[in-house]
């Protein structure tokens, strides 16, 4: 009964989406307020029905209803509750359900919180949102129905793919989808603006919070996936330039560019046409990401299934939405009015620089990811484009971007003084130079470029601190006054500083771990030991341990400093899942500050020795810590009163005394 309710609710959601997609647009054409105002309640109701469908699927999973094919194939009554819940989206059908749930959730949020939006813009945006939703509802109902029943219900399910039985599954896909799908709002608003043929700076103020939320979720979603791959796959890589990872990186790069160009549009009314294009491109890249992952064109851990019909269906969605949006853009964009002028050296100029490099970097990732597909389609040659390609293209494009980053926030709008800014960044540059020298002195191994990477990372971090120091005038006015200024700074200024600082932290982690990480692959016998960095690991032996639905073979290692001081134990294991006759490697991690020791086991040999991989990963945790700092920065920016959804416009009288306290923004 419950699966049928879910199925039915999904069909109702589709019909509501069609109504929401057609009526408001008719309303905007005929100037009929009643038709336009259908959009908001329809969006809320649509979300309610999708939520019912999602919950129905959840109930099937929790109660282990194996008469539902999807549950039978991906769940098992022995699995802990948390994995029975997360396996809802640990498969193709379920993850598409999660996708539409989030899509309609965002639609409902716009409907509920968008009370201060112009009626026409809101009606158009919600209608576009409904078209996207309708396409995906149809996709689920026609090719990926999760509610299909099996006539003779089996007694036990086939279990979730063991690699997915991990807390990471509870976090990574929902966050990633919040990011991907969050950009649909910017897309819908962009299309709505094009339909209306009118756009102004206020558009950017309405859209920015949504872009910010999506960007924050995508940032931690990618970082979470990276950490998950790092500890789960057993060889300690944090980024593989796997097509599926690239599929999530591309919207992130475009979204970051969008976030910055929307600032220019909001403050200065410039770059309107470009911002609209970026909004379209960002969500298009999210759709392409979905296509790449879901269609099975690329084979990877994430391709749950390969069914050509699905690929063709998503490809059709892709063509209609991206093609349609770009065609509409080509037709209507010339109608949009031009914005303000600015000199090349100015805050706007810096943000344009940022946009140029981010979108170009995004384009190189795009080419590297899709070139093998294109080549195979054209010539039949099968090639792979691996990390060397991306390191040789993405890296050089990111260096100038990073180096320029501290300058941006310090430049004035309209016409900036680059020499003045450079003077203010002298302390940061000195610190960076010192870091370069120190890394050269401390680490003689590794590539010669690595210390300069550290230098750039430190420059970025120090630049973010300089920005705040300059705004609060901390070294020039008494401390109390500076503190008052700090409290008076707009939260978005703090947000910028934190997010930029986070980038520096991540970069520092990446440079350290790639340049100075060390690796030992060896076979050890009980009683034997391995040395790495300043640590010595002694292998004490193997024992087995039973888990809820798996069996562990655990290696016991004692970790000491090279001088003999005992630090702790590490217990990597090989985990076997009888339901699927599969085994996974469970690496053991030991954090030492921001660095980690990483140990994973191979299959024990008959003679008692075990193959192990042991890594020392200096500063590796900084990679993900940086992402968290970026997330925090985004959150601060989001809480800025200017962007607070539904916040009343600040009264002029109250705003004035504050404005005199702040340096020019």
């Amino acid at each position, binding site marked *: 009964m419950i699966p049928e309710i879910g199925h039915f609710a999904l069909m109702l959601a589709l019909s509501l989406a069609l109504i929401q997609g057609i009526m408001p647009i008719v309303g905007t054409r005929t100037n009929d307020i009643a038709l336009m105002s259908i959009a908001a309640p329809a969006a809320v109701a649509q979300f309610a029905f999708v939520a019912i469908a999602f919950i129905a699927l959840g109930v099937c999973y929790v109660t282990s209803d194996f008469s539902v*094919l999807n549950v039978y194939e991906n769940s098992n009554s022995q699995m802990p509750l948390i994995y029975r819940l997360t396996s809802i989206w640990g498969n193709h059908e379920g993850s598409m359900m999660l996708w539409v749930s989030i899509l309609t959730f965002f639609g409902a949020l716009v409907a509920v919180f968008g009370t201060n939006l112009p009626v026409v813009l809101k009606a158009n945006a919600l209608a576009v949102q409904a078209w996207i939703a309708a396409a995906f509802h149809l996709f689920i109902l026609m*090719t990926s129905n999760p509610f299909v029943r099996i006539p003779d219900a089996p007694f036990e399910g086939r279990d979730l793919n063991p690699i997915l039985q991990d807390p990471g599954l509870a976090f990574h896909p929902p966050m990633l989808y919040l990011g991907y799908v969050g950009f649909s709002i910017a897309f819908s608003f962009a299309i709505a603006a094009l339909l209306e043929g009118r756009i102004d700076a206020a558009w950017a103020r309405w859209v920015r919070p949504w872009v910010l939320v999506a960007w924050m979720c995508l940032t931690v979603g990618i970082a979470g996936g990276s950490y998950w791959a790092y500890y789960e796959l057993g060889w300690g890589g944090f980024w593989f330039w796997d097509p599926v990872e690239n599929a999530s990186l591309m919207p992130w790069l475009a979204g970051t560019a969008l976030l910055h160009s929307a600032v220019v549009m909001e403050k200065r009314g410039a770059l309107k046409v470009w911002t609209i294009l970026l909004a379209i491109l960002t969500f298009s890249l999210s759709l392409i990401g979905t296509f790449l992952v879901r269609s099975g064109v690329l084979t990877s*851990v994430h391709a749950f299934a390969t069914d050509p019909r699905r690929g063709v269906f998503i490809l059709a969605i892709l063509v209609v939405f991206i093609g349609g949006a770009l065609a509409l853009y080509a037709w209507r964009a010339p109608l949009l009015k031009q914005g303000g002028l600015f000199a090349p050296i100015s805050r706007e100029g810096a943000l344009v620089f940022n946009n140029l490099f981010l979108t170009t970097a995004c384009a190189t990732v795009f080419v590297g990811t899709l*070139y093998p597909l294109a080549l195979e389609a054209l010539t039949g040659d099968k090639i*792979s*484009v691996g990390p060397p*390609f991306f390191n040789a293209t993405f890296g050089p494009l990111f260096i100038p971007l990073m180096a320029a980053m501290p300058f941006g926030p310090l430049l004035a709008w309209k016409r900036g003084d680059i020499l003045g800014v450079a003077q203010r960044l002298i302390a940061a540059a000195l610190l960076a130079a010192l870091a370069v020298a120190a890394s050269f002195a401390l680490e003689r191994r590794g590539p010669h470029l690595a210390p300069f990477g550290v230098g750039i990372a430190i420059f970025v971090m120090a630049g973010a601190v300089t920005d705040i120091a300059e705004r609060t005038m901390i070294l020039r006015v008494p401390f109390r006054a500076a503190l008052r200024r700090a409290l008076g700074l707009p939260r978005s200024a703090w947000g910028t500083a934190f997010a930029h600082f986070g980038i520096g932290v991540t970069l520092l982690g990446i440079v350290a771990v790639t340049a100075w990480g060390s690796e030992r692959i*060896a076979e050890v016998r009980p009683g034997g030991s391995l040395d790495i960095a300043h640590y010595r690991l002694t292998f004490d032996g193997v024992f087995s341990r039973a888990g809820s639905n798996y069996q562990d073979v655990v290696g016991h290692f004692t970790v000491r400093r090279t001088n003999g001081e005992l630090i702790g134990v590490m217990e990597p294991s090989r985990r076997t899942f009888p339901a699927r006759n599969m085994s996974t490697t469970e690496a053991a991690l030991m954090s030492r500050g921001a660095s980690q020791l990483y140990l994973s086991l191979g299959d024990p040999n008959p003679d008692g020795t075990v193959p192990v*991989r042991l890594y020392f990963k200096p500063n590796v945790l900084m990679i993900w810590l940086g992402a968290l700092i970026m997330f925090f920065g985004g959150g601060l920016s989001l809480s800025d009163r200017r962007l607070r959804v539904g916040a009343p416009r600040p009264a002029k009288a109250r705003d004035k005394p504050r404005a005199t306290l702040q340096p020019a923004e």
Partner: protein
Amino acid sequence: MTRKQQRLALIGGGLGVLAVAVALMLNAFRDSIVFFNSPSDVAENHVGPGTRIRLGGMVKDGSLVRGNNLVVRFEVTDGKSELPVRYQGVLPDLFREGQGVVAEGTFDGSGTFDADTILAKHDETYMPREVADALKKSGHWKDDYAQRAAMPIGGGNK
């Protein structure tokens, strides 16, 4: 600065960055592209020693030999021809005889494929797509592979 100058500067800057990116990409494409070959392709394409390729096929039953120092040797076959592979390191979890494998590396002078990477795949029903295509091409695609490959974890409409 007039609007026209501003637009020219923007377009010029954009084209400049794009040109740099294209140069970087062409350069990287020259050095870092790796072609996929089945054992039959290797003979056909005359892959010489030192050329980096991906070699894919099935691990031949009974060919796996474990040596000292984590050295493993095995043979990769596509049903028509087979090639010896040498690898030093810990094999991925799902490496088994009779299953699909993709190895990346170069041929040494004696015709042994020296793999530095064995691609880790994470599903027992999974057959690398390139391998499946290669087996179909050589006419050694068996139904039980097809069944395994066609039985997706995600399932489908029945």
